């Protein structure tokens, strides 16, 4: 069933607001990085609509294995910006206790699993989680997000194959943003990404990830398929990385002709145009939404950056269920 017929103006507006808040947070965090407040960031700019669409279609019990560039998804899942920032600042309120680089979130409470740096390494875990759901006859599916670069990893191959062989409820969503750092997707793989599904015996579909309706249509069809127990599914969402790979990257080195202001590929502008043409919104309301987002993000950053660091002893915790003598001894000798 396509959700579009039943998509209300409020839902479209709330998708738009989510994307704008995510974009605003990206911009504010990059500024904070330049000022030394936050150490590093991988912006999601350009991928907001695809991620928002995924978030809109999730059920509460679904388990998400996202990756490091998923701001809009986290926000659409209802994870508070304050918690996102606590992780990025590595402060005392960060549930990961400041151990991971910014953007490497773990929110078990929200069914958002855990992000690692090694590309693709979460994909086999997603199949294990799906088997657990199946074995324990629990509701929900597993959604695994990853970049175009990740499709080259051995982990991707293993996960796709296992998910199909064991007929698991995994929805694989490739956020193809055209780049893996400096490597354009056409040098990453000669094949169409969505067609890789064929090789594993599952359906694959490409959606325009910069378009809300196309994304919602494709993903909801895939989710229906996976939820019904027919097996895994691969979605390729074609998006666009509007900026640098990360705050450590200088895209001018490899993207000379490509770099634009992103206007043609900017999914937020596209949605704005659609809403304007439908008379759902006017320019003044757009400015107001953006202003509110800026105010919100400024206020949260100001608030969260005041929270002190975790205690130094905390770096020696959580290796095992019970502390071992090795870390206890090292803690005494180092602190």
């Amino acid at each position, binding site marked *: 069933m396509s959700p579009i017929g039943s998509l209300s103006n409020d839902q479209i507006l709330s998708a738009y607001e989510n994307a704008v808040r995510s974009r605003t947070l990206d911009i504010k965090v990059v500024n904070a990085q330049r000022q030394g407040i936050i*150490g*590093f960031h991988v912006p999601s700019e350009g991928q907001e609509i695809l991620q928002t669409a995924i978030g809109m279609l999730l059920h509460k019990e679904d388990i998400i294995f996202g990756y490091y560039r998923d701001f809009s998804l986290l926000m659409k899942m209802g994870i508070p910006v304050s918690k996102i920032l606590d992780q990025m600042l*590595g402060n005392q309120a960060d549930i990961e206790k*400041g*151990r*991971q*680089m910014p953007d*490497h979130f773990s929110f078990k409470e929200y069914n958002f699993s855990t992000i*690692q*740096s*090694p*590309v*693709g390494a979460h994909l086999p875990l997603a199949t294990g989680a799906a088997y657990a759901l199946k074995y324990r006859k629990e509701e929900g599916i597993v959604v695994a997000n990853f970049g175009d*670069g*990740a499709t*080259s*990893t*051995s*982990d991707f191959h293993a996960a796709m194959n296992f998910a199909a062989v064991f007929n698991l409820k995994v929805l694989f969503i490739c956020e193809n943003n055209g780049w*893996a*750092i*400096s*490597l354009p997707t056409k*040098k*990453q*793989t000669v094949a169409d990404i969505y067609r890789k599904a064929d090789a594993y015996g599952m359906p694959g579909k490409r959606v325009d990830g910069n378009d809300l309706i196309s994304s919602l249509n494709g993903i909801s069809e895939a989710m229906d398929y996976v939820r019904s127990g027919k097996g895994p599914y691969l979605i390729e969402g074609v998006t666009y990385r509007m900026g640098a790979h990360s705050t*450590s*990257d200088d895209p001018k*080195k*490899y993207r000379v002709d490509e770099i634009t202001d992103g206007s043609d590929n900017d999914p937020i502008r596209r949605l704005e145009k659609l809403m304007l043409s439908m008379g759902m919104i006017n320019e003044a309301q757009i400015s107001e939404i953006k202003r509110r987002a800026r105010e919100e993000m400024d206020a949260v950053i100001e608030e969260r950056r005041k929270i002190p*660091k*975790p205690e*130094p002893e905390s*770096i*020696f915790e959580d*290796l095992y269920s019970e502390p071992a003598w*090795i*870390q206890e001894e*090292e*803690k005494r*000798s*180092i*602190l």
Partner: protein
Amino acid sequence: MTLKTMVQSLNQTLDVLMAENQNVILLGEDIGKNGGVFRVTEGLQNKYGEGRVLDTPLNELGIVGMGAGMAMYGLRPIVEIQFQDFIFPAFDQIVNQIAKIRYRTGNQFSVPLVIRTPYGGGVRGGLYHSQSGESYFVHTSGLKVVTPSNPYDAKGLLVSSFESGDPVIFLEPKRVYRSIKSEVPEELYRIEIGKAALLKEGSDVTVITYGSMVSTVVDTITKNRVNADVIDLRTLLPMDIDAIISSVKKTGRVVIVHEAPRTLGMGAEISALISERAMDYLLAPIIRVTGPDIPFPYIYEELYLPDERRIMDAISKVKNY
């Protein structure tokens, strides 16, 4: 001669090796157009073309495995793994293929492959851009493991690694990539694999270290006027046992400093070798100053990394024993 950073020194060395030998091929992620995320391969694709500087898909197993196949069949690949933390998908290729190929084929084949990779912490890289995994490789016979501590050694060791005829894990301390400069001659020169450097001479204590910790150790020893032998191992496999033992026989006191975790780190092997060969000369227990046995945390890097205070504590312990 010009002053160069380690990045510049490595870049210039690769350039000369490629110019002199048509069979030298570079492979890695983002090493071509982008010149590598640390810029070690900057300009080389422009100069030598896409057929000799390959931007690969994102798969370390593929990079190392393809490099090994090239090496077995007449080419001279030098591959880059973007961060040592991401080498583990290639671990099977390294341990089960390249380290064993000469042995299992009765010397019919060899794998003259250099695997360059930045390692170590101190750049706010968190769990996955900071690890010092040398022990995993040093535990694998058939490999050589090398780590330069300065721009001059980086060149000499890279040339020797390239010429060694065996697979070499070439660990580049990323914290030192741009932090120190040294005089680096333009022409190729060699630093023998398996030979340590005695950076300072003294009679009270032997401090053994390598790679990323060398400059911290030297600064500490100099600043505190410790009368110490400072040994920079330079090669971790095979280690320069003679340099270690002759110094220990002179000083009788040993401190080992490395950034990698303590348990089964290089310090464990060095201590065992010393106790087997020079027990009678020891005047104090051997002390290790190392990273703790925890993942490298994003915050509190400064607690993880051995520093002046911890090194001096260890030195005074062995001196006052």
